[in-house]
């Protein structure tokens, strides 16, 4: 339901891209908000868990949120960034 929120990620997007790129072993510059986590980037369930673990280290408040809640209705990097921003409630510096 959040796929339209591709532009609202702000700096949460930067953190997300950085962590996603590290898991994928790709340069962050190759990642874009519109990319589908699974269909375009090849994320599988273990990688999603890993991503959640890394994001928790950056935003401890995420420990309160389960992975399924974080991902519900989210398909793209941008949408996930939007969800992150709302969940953490913080603009990310």
């Amino acid at each position, binding site marked *: *339901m959040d796929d339209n929120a591709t532009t609202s990620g702000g700096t949460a997007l930067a953190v997300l891209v950085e962590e996603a790129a590290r898991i994928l072993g790709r340069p962050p510059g190759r990642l874009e908000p519109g990319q589908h986590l699974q269909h375009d980037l090849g994320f599988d369930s273990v990688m999603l868990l890993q991503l959640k673990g890394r994001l928790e280290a950056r935003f401890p408040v995420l420990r309160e*949120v389960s992975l399924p809640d974080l991902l519900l209705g989210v398909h793209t990097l941008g949408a996930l960034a939007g969800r992150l921003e709302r969940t953490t409630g913080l603009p990310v510096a």
Partner: protein
Amino acid sequence: MTTTVNRAESTEQAVRERIARLEHDLGDLDDPGNPLGADHFLAADGRQHLLPAAERLLDDFGLNAEFVPRELGGRLDRLDVLARVLRAVFRRDAALGLGYGMTSYLAAVVVWADGNEEQRRRTAELLLGGGRMAGAYPEPVPGNDFLHNRLTATRVPGGHRLDGRKEALNNAARVDSLVVFAHTPEAGEDAHTAFLLPGPGAADVDLLPRRRTSGIRGCVIQGLRFSGHRIGADGLLGAEGGGAVLAERAFPVTRSTGPSMALGCADTALRTTVAFARAHRARSRASLRSARTRSALVDAFTDLLVCDCLSLVATRGVHLLPRESRTLSAVVKYLLPTVLTEMVYDLSVVLGSESYATSGSYGMFQKAARDLPMIGLGSAGTAASRGVIIEHLLRATEPGAADGSEGDFGRLFRPHDDDLPSVSPQELTSAAPGDSLLASLPAAVRSARAARGEFAGALGEAADALATELRLLREDCARLAERRPAGGLSPRVYALADRYALIAAGAACLGVWQHGAGPDGGLLADPAWAAMALARIVGRLDRTAVRAPEAGAEHLLAEVLDRFDDARSYDLYATPIGR
């Protein structure tokens, strides 16, 4: 104990009062002081028997009168009402609903359909006196261990002798009367005949060991073996060799009412889940703050409304559209067991580890999760109904095409309307090519497009998507019809039957919304639920076609929580429960 009934009991007001009385008597499931509370039903389930206090209560209420037609002294004159009353029992315990109720009814239906005066009178007397019945229906193809029936009756002077086994029969040891379908080869190679017998007290009837079941554990299910059991001429139900037709007359009634009753079981699963979510602090992962929890609750409620719309149309269809009720009831029997079972799995993510608890505040959830799959008896239980839908698709190659009789179907869709014609069993077997439910769709789609308010757009869009699915189905059916008849049909027809069932469910929802519209319609007149219901159905047909409106989910969630707080049922009726 004999129950007598008068005409005034059939009005909607009287029906509500009757259900209120039963709900009141059964009391609050969550009250630890209630002898009919959840703890006691869970304990009885663990001990694998029915709760004696509950059986006594239903004796006192005269539940059996619900199964006996009014003209024979009972309270039965509307099948939608029968299902509503039994939901009160299924909300507590599906085993009780089956063991005390539905099992008897499944057998009695056959007697009402074609028994002679004397058989009808005796059966009514037996039930009104608190007796029990069970029925051994013919085994469908492909069948399973529970549906297995290898009974044969052969002619002897003055009647028949019965031999063979029926592997699984609920209450086999304690019934007072049995309806048995047996193969009668002398009346034709595949001929079956129905018989009405007394309970299994005779020396030539053996009880087989009890079967273990993963759900409805309170039901005592055993097999029966007949070895040359004599049946007199007065035991013949209908004509010799007429068993198949007789079973066909019973199916529209049993297939529409049975799954509809089981809605009560799913209702309790949802209420238990809401209780769990409500009880968890805001920062817990199970709380109502969790988007996953909210969507699980809303989706489950939506599924229940969809199932009830279909149940409503099918049970009222037996009265209003007898010649179409064979198909309508098959859709219910095909779709509901699966949708309800999966609905409970979807809710289990909210409860997490509590979804396995066999006792405590949420123990009823795992019980419902084990009970519901038993009610449909697995894929073999739905196979015959799917076959009926396929037959319909081949008869009416343009399902739902206007047949010129786009009449007023409003009564089909009105949950509280109490003016229904009585059932004529003879008509139930002469299937009509018409399809009033799908024929009602174009007008309903037009209304949906013309709806006003916040959710009007979403409703119109979902209704259009449903209409598109109907068009695609018709094209595929036409393609099927073009093929020259061969020995057998392509398995593609299975998928067509599934799509037909979903579209019929959508049409039922849209009809209920359309005819519920009005200032006093409450939830049902609101486009929000209809938009959500249609989006969910269309999503099963094509998961990319439409999206449920987010605000609609908030709307339904508010209703879910309101009904929880007011203790009202999760179906079309919002019945006050347990007070």
